């Protein structure tokens, strides 16, 4: 029961602050509401006993990516944007499309009230130590993907530096 109440509070916070992210006029306010959404999603990870992912969410998303976002929001001129229209011309069409998307996904998931139609749960015990299990999976089964991800981060870092450089010679 307590679990369900926590889930409902966290999901309402996540959804409402996500709506604020896409409706605020000031990009700084959007970034702060996005931080609230990320915290709520982190709480949902914690609710599912994904402790390592919760820590990654807080350290990497809230601590890293959001600071990067706020830096860039401060760098570009926000005073001009405050006086301009928030939404693009095509917003009614876009809204209808997105609501249709939600309706289709919801219909597919709802499946005439029978729920998700998932395959049966495997009869194994969940790993007791989440961080240990994730670390084992990362460094044993997923060794090559981890290396590829590190190359991706290197490429992204070099790309960002090249892109933000003042002049390309």
């Amino acid at each position, binding site marked *: 029961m307590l679990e369900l109440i926590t889930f409902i509070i966290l999901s309402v916070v996540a959804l409402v602050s996500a709506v604020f992210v896409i409706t605020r006029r000031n990009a700084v306010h959007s970034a702060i509401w996005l931080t609230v959404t990320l915290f709520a999603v982190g709480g949902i990870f914690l609710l599912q006993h994904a402790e390592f992912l919760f820590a990654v969410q807080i350290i990497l998303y809230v601590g890293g990516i959001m600071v990067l976002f706020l830096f860039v929001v401060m760098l*570009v001129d926000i005073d001009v944007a405050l006086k301009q229209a928030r939404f693009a011309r095509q917003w009614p069409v876009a809204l209808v499309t997105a609501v249709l998307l939600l309706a289709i996904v919801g219909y597919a998931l709802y499946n005439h009230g029978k729920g998700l139609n998932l395959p049966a749960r495997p009869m194994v015990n969940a790993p007791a130590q989440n961080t240990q299990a994730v670390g084992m999976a990362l460094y044993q089964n997923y060794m090559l993907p981890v290396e590829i991800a590190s190359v991706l981060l290197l490429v992204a870092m070099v790309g960002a530096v090249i892109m933000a450089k003042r002049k390309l010679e």
Partner: protein
Amino acid sequence: MIPTEYYIFLGSGLFTIGVIGVLTRRNVLIILMSIELILNAVNINLVALSQYFKSVDGQVFAIFVITDAAAEAAVGLGLIIALFRNKETVNADEIDLLKW
């Protein structure tokens, strides 16, 4: 124990809000923030199904998604800075260099 459906529905709601943000906003920065919302919705689904199947594979995949989000944010924000320097705007509908 919360049913897995609830997490999936929350994920699809967050995904739709992100799609609305990407499609309707003019500010490129907020479009990038909406992409982060979409990636978070995906992560919720991955963790929920990883919990359902009692394996950590979904969580490992969510970590890779977060890595991609970091790379995407770095490159995207670098692009926005270069764009602002050249065009003096961050509005997606004013960037029409390839349109004639």
